[in-house]
C-alpha cells in the first residue's frame, strides 16, 4: 500500500522538480529540445537516487516518461508563463503519467 502511494509521489515529485529546474534555466535557444534534454538528464539522476528505495522498474518507467514530457513542455512554457505555473503543470503531468502507468499495470497484471 505504501509503495503504491509512493508511485504517485515519485511521478508528482519528479515532474515538479524537473519543471522547476528547466524553468529556472529557462533555455533561450531551442527551448523545447533543450528542455527535453535537461529533463532526460535530470530523470537519469532521479532514477539513480530513487531506484534503490522504490524499485528499479517502478521508478525507471514513470520517471523516464515524465522527464522527457515535462522537460519539453517546461522548456516551451518557461519563456511564456510564470515559474509557479510551469512547476504546477510539471507536477500535474507527473501525476497523470503515474496514474496512467498504475492503471496500465493493473490491467496487465490481472490478465
Amino acid at each position, binding site marked *: 500500500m505504501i*509503495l503504491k502511494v509512493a508511485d504517485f509521489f515519485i511521478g508528482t515529485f519528479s515532474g515538479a522538480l524537473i519543471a522547476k529546474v528547466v524553468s529556472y534555466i529557462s533555455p533561450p535557444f531551442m527551448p523545447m529540445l533543450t528542455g527535453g534534454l535537461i529533463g532526460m538528464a535530470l530523470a537519469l539522476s532521479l532514477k539513480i537516487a530513487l531506484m534503490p*528505495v522504490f524499485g528499479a522498474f*517502478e521508478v*525507471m*518507467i514513470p520517471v523516464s516518461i515524465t522527464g522527457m514530457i515535462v522537460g519539453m513542455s517546461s522548456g516551451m512554457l518557461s519563456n511564456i508563463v510564470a515559474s509557479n505555473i510551469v512547476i504546477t503543470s510539471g507536477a500535474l503531468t507527473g501525476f497523470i503519467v503515474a496514474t496512467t502507468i498504475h492503471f*496500465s*499495470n493493473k490491467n*496487465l497484471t490481472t*490478465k
Partner: protein
Amino acid sequence: MSKQSYDGVAKVFDYFAVGDMRRWGPSQRFLFKNLKGRILYIGIGTGQEIVNFPPGLNIIAADLSIEMLKRSDKRVKNYSGKIHRCQMDAETTAFADNTFDTVVTVCTLCTVNQAVSCLQEIKRVLKRDGELLMFEHVLSKNPVYALVLKMMSIITKYLQGTHLDRNTVANIEKAGFKIHSHKNVYLDIVKALRAHYSAE
C-alpha cells in the same frame, strides 16, 4: 560482461536491489512455493531471494562471481535448508545431463552473455519431466515502455551487464521449452514464468 566486472558489481548489488526485493517478495514466494526435488538455482548473486524460498529444501546454487558468492554467506547460513554453492558459468555448467528436477533463475537471463545458450544448458541438466521457474524482466510490447527500456539498456549494459531489451519469452521457446504458466508482476516487463521440456 566478464567475471571481474561482476565481482565489481557485487559491491553495490545489494544496495540497488533493496527496492526490488521489497516489491517482488510476495510474487517470488508464490512462484517458489511448490519447489521440489533436486533444485539448481542459477545466478544466486548475493542470495537476496533465499528468504523467499520455502524452508527445508536442498539447493545447489551457481554463480559466475566469487565476490557475489562471498556476499551470500549470511543468507545461506540463515536458510533452514541446505544450499551448496559453486562458482561456474551458467552457459557451461559442470553438471551431468538430466540431473535436476527444478531449475530456478531470478534476473539471470538478462545478464548472461548468450541467453539462448544458457537456456539450452539448463535444458541439458534438467530432467525430462523437470520444471524451469523463472523470475525475469523482459522487453515490453508497449512501444513507449520499450523505448525507455532500450534507452536505459545502453547504460545498464555498461554499468551492470544487465540487458533490459531482451525478449526472454521468445528465447525460452527458442531453446526448446514450453511455457505453461505466464504471470506479469509489473506491467509486461517483470514476469514469473514456469516452463517445461517441449517435446517438439
